[in-house]
């Protein structure tokens, strides 16, 4: 079969990109290897681990379960867009640092993307709700406890910052 290519145009973290992609290129590979946004990690490529979670038009999705061509015309957000380079970290990032919510850090970008979206929508979650929201992101290092604590703290930080 001849490679099937398509031109796509999309924004990632507010930057507009125009590329030609093969139809089968996974969105996760496109972000990492075509756009150089390697902060989005790949852990399973079958939609279970959550490491590749990004925001598609504001909602968390698995970037390994989308084709790059499907992102045509959409606005994406990745971990690189959470905090400006050398600027102040996003409250969720700050809380993860303060509570030792990461060890190897590989699952962390996916968790940050899942939870920033979740906390925007649910500003005062209970611990059980946070655990439920986190349950689609596997972490093999932390046992989740410090991540849960970080998210409760992040929620409080975000409530304070909210206008």
């Amino acid at each position, binding site marked *: 079969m001849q490679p099937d290519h398509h031109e796509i145009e999309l924004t990632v973290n507010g930057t507009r990109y125009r590329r030609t992609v093969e139809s089968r290129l996974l969105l996760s590979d496109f972000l990492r290897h075509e756009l150089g946004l390697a902060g989005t990690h790949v*852990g399973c490529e079958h939609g279970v681990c959550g490491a590749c979670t990004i925001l598609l038009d504001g909602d968390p999705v698995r970037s390994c379960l989308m084709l790059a061509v499907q992102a045509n015309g959409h606005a994406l957000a990745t971990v690189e867009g959470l905090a400006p380079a050398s600027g102040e*970290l996003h409250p969720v990032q700050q809380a993860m640092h303060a509570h030792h919510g990461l060890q190897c*850090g*590989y699952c962390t*970008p996916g968790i940050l993307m899942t939870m920033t979206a979740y906390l925007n929508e649910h500003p005062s979650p209970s611990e059980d709700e946070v655990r439920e929201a*986190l*349950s689609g992101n*596997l972490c093999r290092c932390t046992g989740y406890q*410090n991540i849960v604590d970080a998210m409760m703290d992040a929620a409080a930080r975000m409530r304070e910052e909210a206008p």
Partner: protein
Amino acid sequence: MSTRFFGAPVKRNEDRKLLTGQALFIDDVELPDMLHVAFLRSQVAHARLKQIDVSRARQRPGVVAVYVAEDYGDYWQPGPLLVQPPPIPGSTFNPRTQVPLARDKVRYVGEPLAVVVAESRYLAEDALDDIDVELETLPAVVDIEQALTSSSVPVHDDLGSNVAAHVHQVKGDYRKAAANAQIILKRRFRYEHGISSPIETRGVVAHWNARGQQMTIWDTTQAPVFIRNGLAAMLGLGERQVRVIAPFVGGGFGPKIMMFYPEEVGLPWISMRLNRPVKWIEDRLEHFVATTHERGQIHDAEIALAADGRILGVKDVFLHDTGAYNTYGLTVPINSQCTLLGPYVIPAYDSTFTAVFTNLPIVTPYRGAGRQHGVFVIERLLDLAARELGIDRAEIRRRNLIPPDAFPYNNQIIFQDFAPLSYDSGNYEPVLAKALDAIGYQRFLKEEQPKFREEGRCVGIGVACYVEGTGIGPYEGAKVQVQANGKVNVATGIGTQGQGHFTSFAQIVADQLGVDPSDVDIVTGDTDQFYWGAGTFASRGAVVAGNAVSEASAAVRRKALKLAADAFECAEEDLVLADGKVSIAGIPGKFIRLGELAQRANPMRGAVRPGTEPGLESTQYFGPPSGATANGVHAAIVEIDPLTLELKVLKYVVVHDCGTVINPMILEGQIHGGVAQGIGNAFFEKLAFDDQGQLLNASLADYLLPTALDVPRMELDHTVTPSPLNPLGIKGAGEAGAIPVGAVFAQAIEDALQLTSRKVELLEIPLSPSRLFELTRQEDA
């Protein structure tokens, strides 16, 4: 010297990079003209390889090369034996190490047969379909008991049997002990472990620079120096020509140590051959068979006790599944054998194991590394004994603990580090007492549990003790160097996979040199930055490398004070090293910055005096005589739905003693993560093979890593008994969380469901609701 940072919960230096997506992981390495590699893996567990035809694959557009074993020529060699067997008299050890590509025979599903190099991974995977393989299928050796029968085919034809090793170790006289016993209890235990399954799989990037005659290898290894030395020898290069970089690694837990995996061996050769950089990233499907496992043991164990519950002796005969090759020597079964002795006085011990070759993926250490198998056996034996003798479960443990005045306590048998199994220090009873107090043991049994039972709720408690041999040699080193900008650079040879080395080592340096930990840059895992070392495994990074960092920074401190004393023409005793500068006590305005001292230590004119060396730096090594023994107690309260047998952990307590603590925040994180993996092992994770050696659940949808809903909140506490074996008094803690969880779960579930009165014993791990249903229903029927 102050200890402002050592012992404090200093926030991690490495976090910012990781939180912003800027850390370099293996798949982030991008090089011009890089090619991508995919491996064709055997779909059959045991077969003779009759023919393999790669000609169609070579024709496919985008494919640059396809290699089979013959193409490797003289480079094709079985991999090195990574760990020699300890010198235990009378032992049998039959080393059979894995091969870079299967040549005559395949021995497990997933063993690589061919390698495709293409312009993209997508194209490389396409070409795997083009390869025609002709196999003559042989019976698969899957069951370790059947593997030893005369009717079993051998996994390694030349060996004639499937015995990989046979080891017998003895302490005291078990027969005499048994003769004096009030009771002897004997049971069969099965303990399956799983796969470490870090969220980042493995990967290798190799780049041969022909003009510079330099090989650079990025590798998700926990032991870059070993890999450099080994690959340099294999490739016919000098060690100085090979640089191995272990970048940020997304979790290791053992199987990333230093396996000389077929992919690790293949890629550098391919890069030299094609003169282009090549990358291979393991996908999750490959990971389940291509990365090493830790798996099953079957123990036939008996315990002899006096009427008061004192252990007189233990006898254990066990089988250990080592998989298709035994590349990692005897580390895992020796750990099981040694760790079974636990924190208890066991005067007589007679332990024999047989390691067995099977047609299953290779078994090497994974967090705990066989220790949990041994802990499960002794802890379950004590539970049975407590019941038989009418002694409380916690009390029988307390009565058998090694008393604090008995250290160093020599258990007489040989440990995995070749040294006698000697516990350096410990004070066990307070640890047990704290754990019982924290879980509310007495209150639970006397007040809460009866109430739960009245309400029809099945709630039970479990308590288990363990020791962990940690911090073994041979050695690690560190180079501490003050730079002209005043920042301190530290290089060490170990790799890092999330343990917080960038922070804990910085804390050690910060106190010695009077700087902030954030001004200390740590480099790990780059063989060009630090030449010698062993690696990150066996809970040894903080112990062995930590002490080397301490020694080196102390030496730099001495140098700095000496240089400043010369500059100020004063006595060293009058100087204060703090806030990145050396000042004269009482004269705050009179100081010299560390960066300036570093410049003076490397003068452009004048002479470096004889007996001194340039640079404000020092390289020091540390090697402990033997491992430091940490210990701890886990306790849990669990509830089981009596109808569905689903489990909920209501409370989980860990009290442990790992000697002096560098960073309690990082330590707690290690424990949390260990317990989570222990819970996975105890109740969720099982590698399900069929009788043909096919893994039935090779996906994260079916191999069940615990989620945030499955791991409970943990309450931690600790005591401190410093190790006398290293100046900092540290013991390792990386594996402690994972080791006793199976024993705790089995005990607590038995208690919750009152299985004792139903004559059901839980003698196996992992458990699951379905398995509990089978076990309880058999008895009820």
